């Protein structure tokens, strides 16, 4: 294949290949090679992300809120306290000014909620048809917490795997809107800044081994990346994974697996077994963590792979999603 296909942007195997074959060898350095959501640079962490979601306004948020929360969360899961954000906006000729105002306002509101400042930025306008309405890039800088080391190398067999709440709502909301499926008003994107909750979790247990926000590729992709990077197996229990019935329904109709659906306000944590309960109770104090659950364990067996104990007691693999057909989900 000699051209970029939509699958290269889906966060699955094609994206991983792109990083391994082009990005890493070209830009090779010691900060890049950890391939975490953000880079650790001494006492600070830095990250960047671009947002091309369609539709730009959706239930539970819009591209502006997403562009702040996504970058804040990438910093938080690096073990940093997010401080400063930059924003680059690419606008298509003809874009409604009122829409831009709404998007800017929700960026400001999300930044306030997350306790970060938007300190620099850039605006470009391209001709009609040369972009799709609005694209946003944000970068963020945060201060790394002392005594915290979020890294796959700290993941050990016996540790517990936690998720901060019900999964798949962001992607299910976007998919339902695109396909004209009616969802109850209670189902909306989970887009939210997680840095407050993550800071509290790290204060309760600085030895949390791994944190990831389960965006593109969902929980399935994140767990596979952790298992691969740490050289361990992960076994999760289907009965314990929180999924709303409505999200299950969308998955059934459209043929998706909730484990593979993108979230924009869910963190996966790998934590020492003896502090799992304490961390869970901390998470449940936050609105974004009320449905937090312990969903499984790190194992010595089947290193590099993720297994699922099913509802009826069977066992199957949770594979790395292969670029499914859900383009422009974030």
């Amino acid at each position, binding site marked *: *294949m000699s051209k970029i296909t939509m*699958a290269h942007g889906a966060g699955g195997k094609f994206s991983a290949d792109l990083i391994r074959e082009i990005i890493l060898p070209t830009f090779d350095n010691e900060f890049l090679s950890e391939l975490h959501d953000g880079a650790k640079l001494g006492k600070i962490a830095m990250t960047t992300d671009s947002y091309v979601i369609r539709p730009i306004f959706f239930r539970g948020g819009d591209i502006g809120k997403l562009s702040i929360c996504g970058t804040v969360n990438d910093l938080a899961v690096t073990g940093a306290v997010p401080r400063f954000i930059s924003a680059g906006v690419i606008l298509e000729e003809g874009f409604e000014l009122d829409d831009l105002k709404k998007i800017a306002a929700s960026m400001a509101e999300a930044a306030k909620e997350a306790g970060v400042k938007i300190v620099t930025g850039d605006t470009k306008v391209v001709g009609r048809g040369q972009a799709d309405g609005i694209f946003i890039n944000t970068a963020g800088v945060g201060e790394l917490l002392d005594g915290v080391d979020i890294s796959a190398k700290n993941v050990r067999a016996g540790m517990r795997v936690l998720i901060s709440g019900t999964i798949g709502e962001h992607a299910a909301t976007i998919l339902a809107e695109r396909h004209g499926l009616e969802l109850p008003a209670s189902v909306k994107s989970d887009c939210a800044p997680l840095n407050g909750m993550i800071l509290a979790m790290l204060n309760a247990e600085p030895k949390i081994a791994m944190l990831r926000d389960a965006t593109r590729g969902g929980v399935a992709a994140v767990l596979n990346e952790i298992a691969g990077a740490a050289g361990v197996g992960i076994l999760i229990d289907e009965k314990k994974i929180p999924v709303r019935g409505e999200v299950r329904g969308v998955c059934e109709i459209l043929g998706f697996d909730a484990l593979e659906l993108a979230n924009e306000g869910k963190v996966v944590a790998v934590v020492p077994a003896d502090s799992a309960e304490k961390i869970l109770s901390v998470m449940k104090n936050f609105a974004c963590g009320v449905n937090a659950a312990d969903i499984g364990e790190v194992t010595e067996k089947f290193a590099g792979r993720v297994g699922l104990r099913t509802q*009826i007691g*069977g066992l199957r693999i949770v594979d790395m999603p292969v670029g499914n057909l859900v383009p422009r989900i974030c």
Partner: protein
Amino acid sequence: MSLVETIENLARGKKNLRFMEVCGTHTVSIFRAGIRNILPENVELVSGPGCPVCVTCDEYIDAAIAYSKMDGVIIATFGDMLKVPGSAGTLAEAAAAGAEVRVIYSPLDCIKIALENPTRRVIFLAVGFETTAPTAAATVLAAKAQGVRNLLFLSAQKLVPPALKMLLADSAVKVDGFLLPGHVAVVTGADAFRFLEVPAVVAGFEPEEILLALVNLLRQVDAGRAEVANEYKSVVKAEGNLAAKKILAQVYEEVDAKWRGLGVIPKSGLRMRAEFAEFDAEKVLPLEIKKAARRTACRCGEVLRGVISPTECPLFGKACQPLHAVGPCMISVEGVCAAWYKYGGLRL
């Protein structure tokens, strides 16, 4: 007693039993629930030819790609056709190279695309079994009624009962019973499978429904019976969906059709009747497709007939993976090789 325990009790002391799940949706459900590895050792589930993408031939993909390269053509297709390789490339590659390929969820979407693009020609890749064929037929009728002039259908729709008839006659295929496809049976009716001479059960798709159907199959084996039971009565009737059957007969006629891996099966395909020729891509835009035979060690054919399991194919998991698939069984979300690769093989 749980269903799994009932199955264990019924299977105890019996010879090795092989049951074929015909439908790709069953295959996926069985793998996702991990059913294979909780069954007793002497009860084996084998997958059949029930993934429409998997049984679609190279020639069809080649034709679709050739159409996609014509000026002004928009190809409309279900998503899982995109990555299926023909003899030279996939539709996804054609799209990356500039062809316009739209993924749709219902054939009726094609009418909307055609009306929005009056200067273009929309070609719908009508692939599927009795489950999707009625909607495609309804779309043909709607297009005719609305006077849509720029919508064509490339039909490779297939019928399941003739394929099962062929499998039963094949001495290489050893099957002690069938889990019959629930969605297909909604249209055909359970009675359409009465010709089977082995135990058969129309089954639903939830893990418990599949286990229930297995219990029924084992009870039939136990009693020495061979009948078509219906464990999906909530939606499947003996006579099927008469309205759907009627529009199928109105739009299509049964013809011999080539299945990947199974060869030509008599009266197993659906061709548009002459009165709908204006919507038939092959009639309106005849193609000259050179037959470029692909030579691969892919054993899709035997996998689709349940003669071998995917892991017995020399390419499985090596040259043939979801990322770079050789055969369609590894591409389609309902393909048995893809399900095996994605969910199978985990032992604790």
